[in-house]
């Protein structure tokens, strides 16, 4: 099989860093490499006793479970809406992809600019609608909502594009015969499109999820972990421990735990995306 060389190459490149990371989590090594390295379980013990870790974990998974479904739903509906072969839609589709293409740092900074009280366009809009406090990013609850909005804004076109591609791959005959049989738009969607698209939808969720687990720049640049750690997602906390404090072994341990918690979800998604 000609997929073997590829697989071998990847596995080779992946294994060393992966195992290094795993082993690292069982040591006391820090980025400042002056002390002797010892093996210890202390990272894991510390983690489970630390309230910040649990809080960050909770923030991270809430983030994923709120943002991803919304991104999927919006992406799905817009994909359906644009499923017609109008030429202008080509441009529309490319334009809609732009948020995904924007540099994450720039996206976060622009949202920070837009939410600036008194001067930011969004802040003023929200103020006239009497929505939320005057300084969203200074409020613990609204800062979280703000980062959610930023992510949804940026990434629903990702789902959108993937679903568009999926819709194209759908056997046209099935949809045509259904329409000939008099099926309404609604039932055509629910009974034909969704089941056929399940593999693509599962893969979209999976891909989004693995990226959402590592989200960093956009949030960091908007809130730096938020007023009073309100937006300190685990990915940010891991970065803080690793890059700011230099506790790479502790960061590694937290990363490993995050990974293991996400694996079951990933497994289910993979299974679903292979079924035909």
């Amino acid at each position: 099989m000609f997929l073997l060389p590829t697989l071998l190459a990847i596995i080779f490149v992946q294994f060393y860093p992966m195992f290094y990371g795993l082993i690292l989590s069982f040591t006391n090594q820090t980025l400042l490499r002056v002390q002797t390295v010892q093996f210890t379980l202390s990272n894991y013990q510390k983690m489970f006793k630390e309230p910040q870790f649990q809080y960050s974990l909770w923030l991270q998974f809430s983030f994923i479970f709120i943002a991803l479904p919304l991104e999927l739903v919006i992406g799905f509906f817009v994909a359906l809406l644009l499923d017609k072969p109008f030429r202008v839609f080509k441009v529309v589709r490319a334009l809609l992809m732009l948020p995904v293409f924007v540099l994450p740092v720039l996206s976060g900074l622009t949202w920070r600019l837009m939410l600036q009280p008194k001067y930011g366009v969004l802040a003023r809009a929200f103020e006239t609608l009497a929505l939320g406090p005057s300084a969203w990013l200074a409020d613990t609850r609204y800062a979280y909502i703000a980062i959610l909005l930023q992510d949804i804004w940026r990434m629903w076109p990702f789902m959108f594009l993937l679903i568009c591609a999926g819709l194209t791959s759908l056997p046209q005959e099935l949809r045509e015969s259904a329409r000939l049989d008099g099926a309404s738009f609604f039932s055509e969607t629910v009974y034909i499109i969704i089941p056929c698209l399940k593999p693509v939808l599962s893969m979209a969720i999976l891909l989004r999820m693995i990226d959402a687990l590592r989200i960093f720049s956009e949030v960091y640049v908007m809130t730096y972990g938020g007023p009073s750690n309100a937006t300190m997602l685990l990915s940010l906390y891991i970065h803080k421990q690793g890059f700011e404090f230099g506790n790479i072994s502790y960061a590694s341990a937290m990363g490993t735990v995050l990974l293991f918690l996400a694996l079951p979800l990933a497994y289910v998604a993979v299974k679903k995306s292979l079924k035909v």
Partner: protein
Amino acid sequence: MKNKILTQISFVIVLVTVAVEMFPLIVIFINSFKKDIDIWMGKFLVFKPTLQSYTDVLTNSDFPRALTNSLIVAFSTTVIAILLGSMASYGLARFQFKIRNVVILILLILRMIPQITLAVPFYMMFRSLGLRDTLLGLILAHTSFNLPYVIALLLPFFADIPKDYEEAARIDGCTEVMLFWKIFFPLASPGIVVAAIFAFLMSWNEFIYALILGGSRVRLASVAVQSFLGQYAPLWGQLSAAGMLMLIPVFIITLGLQRYIIQGLSAGGIKG
């Protein structure tokens, strides 16, 4: 009649969606033509446009060179990832074997680990291989995360292709290789295009590896853009200009590859 109203409503919805979605980008676009003082003054549309930011970005810094580097790296890694990845994805999707799901999962694990954990081993690995601060090194590093991504993304597309195509081709005496290139690759083309776009994008915007594995000789756009972030506060005008410049290549690629996404399946698969 009902159809017409439905179409009109959907047009309106599309318009509104696009407008909302584009808004922050319009902000960036306008900011790239504003003087810094105007950006923070809050008068959204009232200002004297200036090309100063663009001139600064293109002449003062090494940003153009960084852009070229990024183009080279992103393009190379996309090509490699698509070629190798589609083959691998095809193999995994069409051939059933017991631990298939586990293998796929393992492939994806690297992308689920936080980057900080990978930074140190990658740094050491690359240092000992002498690949630090080289284009080749970065291409390899980017491919390491693009490959699993492409493989995973293409799985449903390859899995979806009905068996009839395969059987018909085999009856016609197709070899394995021909089967892949002449039949499966084109059939999965919508997926492949999307995978290409995303692989390019991942490499284009990727920051951590570029920072750690790059150096004085090889700087990528994603790192060069950071110099507009300033030590304290961003140089908003230049940052927006640089951001816009970075959007252009990806946008062109997406626009260009559009036709492969919406192209219907050539019905000649079975009958031909």
